[in-house]
């Protein structure tokens, strides 16, 4: 169901919901902020409020006008019923200054608000949602009355199919297609259907099918997902010491991992958090930790570890056994890494488990190493959570005054340049401290026919979804 509170909690469902619901700020082809429901916005010099002018011709799908009251209502409603993909907790209050004019007051001056909350929160129609006390169970077609360029006409729960119909006179442009049908299919069936002319675009084509799609004469866009596979460390256990994390980084041969587990489907990741293609990436010489067992050996010996004649690593006379945990999606990589660590002399207890159990084990700290994938996209205001957060797919790095300071500094920076400078330093520290060791950046592909063009949105769509399917490709 494509309505804010009842869409599935994954990036793709959020993305499709943005076709039906607009946000205040949208994105241009380069991923920069562009008018959405808001025609324009100005940040007050003190950074504590934003004056917003709405598009005066925006309409809800039932014909009523979108007004400043709707925006104010959405902020209030979302503070009462938290929305999973965007938070309004940085907003102090909203003052309605006219039918299409409003002023949003924020609790503290932050730079990422336009790319963050203004771009993430779908604006809700007050006349529909004000009487809904349980939005998590509000799933009739009425729940999908948005102001987006397409309206939800029908959906089939059992088969995961959606039928969207173009609305006339959307302020952001004319719809290029009368209808969009979204269908969940397996990749081979989708390619077959595309050859038969039934499908025009395949959003997530597995990279190993790219050649097949090209052979059929379809256009293909391939881009790094920025959904980097990382080796996480238990910072509250054996790997509290930075030198030990660096030793492990030198033991792992990322090139061999790439060739074995990701032949042609990923690229080597940068170690300093951001990846090439991100507007925040800095090319400076961050450590790359090229495979160097001798260096790793030295680090471990310095840390008081010892190696037996048979090559087994010991600490205080006991063999070192490391527990590596991951879920089913990373089995192949986990095996390669296990083998590399074992050849180096560690005994590895590899546990592949399902998500619920994995989350529990991470929360309990019952692991040494963990293999997980996590996005580096989205506005950098989310970095704090991804590095210091306690989630199973966060680095769970203990508070580090210098890094925390830089994250804060970039959040409240008054200019883009100031933000870039703070993030440059952050990247250097990330690569040195290794909250996680960035391994590979898997590629993703999208294929489409001559009816449209779908390049990947730099920096990801909206909240950082690595995709080519921003709604603007369906507008003229």
């Amino acid at each position, binding site marked *: *169901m494509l309505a804010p509170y009842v869409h599935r909690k994954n990036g793709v469902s959020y993305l499709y919901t943005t076709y039906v619901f607009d946000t205040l700020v949208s994105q241009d082809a380069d991923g920069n902020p562009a008018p959405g429901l808001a025609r324009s916005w100005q940040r007050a010099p003190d950074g504590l409020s934003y004056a917003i002018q709405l598009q005066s011709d925006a309409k809800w799908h039932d014909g009523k006008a979108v007004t400043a009251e709707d925006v104010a209502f959405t902020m209030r409603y979302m503070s009462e019923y938290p929305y999973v993909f965007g938070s309004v907790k940085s907003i102090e209050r909203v003052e309605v200054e006219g039918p299409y004019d409003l002023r949003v007051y924020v609790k503290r001056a932050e730079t990422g608000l336009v790319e963050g909350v203004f771009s993430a929160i779908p604006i809700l129609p007050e006349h529909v949602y004000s009487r809904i006390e349980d939005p998590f169970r509000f799933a009739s077609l009425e729940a999908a009355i948005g102001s987006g360029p397409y309206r939800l006409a029908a959906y089939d729960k059992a088969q995961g199919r959606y039928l969207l119909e173009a609305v006339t006179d959307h302020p952001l442009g004319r719809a290029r297609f009368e209808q969009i049908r979204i269908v969940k299919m397996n990749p081979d069936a989708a390619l077959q259907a595309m050859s038969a002319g039934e499908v025009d675009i395949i959003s997530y084509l597995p990279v190993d099918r790219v050649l097949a799609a090209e052979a059929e004469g379809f256009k293909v866009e391939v881009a790094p997902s920025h959904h980097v596979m990382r080796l996480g460390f238990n910072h509250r256990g054996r790997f509290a010491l930075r030198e030990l994390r660096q030793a492990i980084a030198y033991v792992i041969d990322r090139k061999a991992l790439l060739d074995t587990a990701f032949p042609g489907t990923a690229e080597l990741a940068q170690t300093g958090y951001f990846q090439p293609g991100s507007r925040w990436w800095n090319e400076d010489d961050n450590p790359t930790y090229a495979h160097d067992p001798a260096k790793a050996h030295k680090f471990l010996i310095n840390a008081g570890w010892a190696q037996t004649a048979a090559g087994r690593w010991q600490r205080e006379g006991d063999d070192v056994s490391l527990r590596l945990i991951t879920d089913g999606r990373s089995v192949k990589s986990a095996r390669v890494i296990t083998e590399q660590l074992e050849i180096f002399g560690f005994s590895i207890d590899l546990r592949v488990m399902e998500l619920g159990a994995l989350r529990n084990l991470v929360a309990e700290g019952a692991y040494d190493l963990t293999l997980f994938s996590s996005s580096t996209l989205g506005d950098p205001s989310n970095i704090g959570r*991804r590095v210091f957060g306690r*989630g199973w797919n966060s680095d769970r790095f203990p508070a580090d005054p210098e890094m925390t300071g830089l994250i804060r500094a970039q959040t409240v920076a008054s200019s883009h340049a100031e933000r870039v400078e703070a993030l440059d330093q952050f990247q250097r520290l990330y690569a040195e401290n290794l909250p996680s060791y960035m391994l590979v950046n898997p590629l993703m592909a999208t294929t489409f026919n001559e009816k449209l063009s779908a390049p990947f949105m730099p920096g990801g769509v909206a909240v950082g979804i690595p995709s080519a399917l921003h709604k603007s490709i369906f507008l003229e």
Partner: protein
Amino acid sequence: MTDTSVVSVDRELSVARGFRSVPFANLVRFASGLILRLLVFASIVAICVVLPRLMPGNTLEIMLSTDLARGLTPAEVRDLQENMGLGGDLFGQVLDYTANLLNGDLGYSIPHAAPVGQLLIAAFPWTGLLILGAAPIFLIGGALAGIEAGRMPGQGVDRWSTPLITVMASLPPFVGAVLLLLVFGVLWPILPTSGAQPLFPATETLSHAFDIARHAVLPSLALALHELARFFFLARAETIHLAQRDFVVNARARGVSVWRIRWVYIGRSLVPAYLARLSDTMTGLISAVFFVEIVFSYPGTGYLIYSAILERDYDLLQGTIVFVAGFVLLVNWCVDGLATRLAERG
């Protein structure tokens, strides 16, 4: 497992014969069969309400596992849990669920944003279609091949059909499904391999029905292949046994035609044994359909259970299992009753 059920049926038959003249005894047996099944049903409900909640993680945690979701504060998570009916302790949740179930409310699926009953109504007919599509194949096909093989054991049809079907029987249902997918989806792509309907369903009823039937062919076949073996061996064994019974030997001596002996004498006598086996088959079919639906992305109850497990969708998982278990026990009770009654007639 299969042998045990045959033995128990035989015992039931002998008990039945002892009370043949007392209709009241029959009623008692039907009633006790029902009570027994109600007890089984109650235990299934109890197990499937408690067990999923003992698994690590809950619906909300799994939903929020995407790294795009913002970090919710503990208070927000608590609010969400309350809003989604996931609040309270295990005991409270189980109590709530049971109370709702007694009121006929199967619960609400959060990830699907729909009542479980509604999802089941949408999914169950697809499963039913696969089972109904498979039934004639394994029942009639099994009987035809089994009778032929059993008439001359070790010779003719038996020589090639028994080894072939033995191999087929050794394939788990999902392997059969994957093989069919490979042959008819990749090597010789003449039949649809995923979903229950084409991408753009036809508006005309007849073509729509035809499309649905085409989509059901491969999954039904995958389901039937496995069950075919069971009924083949049953028909074969019964035929070998029946061929030596006096009434068949007599008929043969009287010059009754071979076809008549096949269908009227042997075929008809197979029915009680077939029915007895059918009640046991229902459970096997339901578990086989689970794999088959996953392989063919077929939107039935099996697929629903699969998604419910992945998403820790307790209500959907329980609702579907309770519903399927109830259905299987009911069919099982009816078929058992019918088989006993038919067997009484000799």
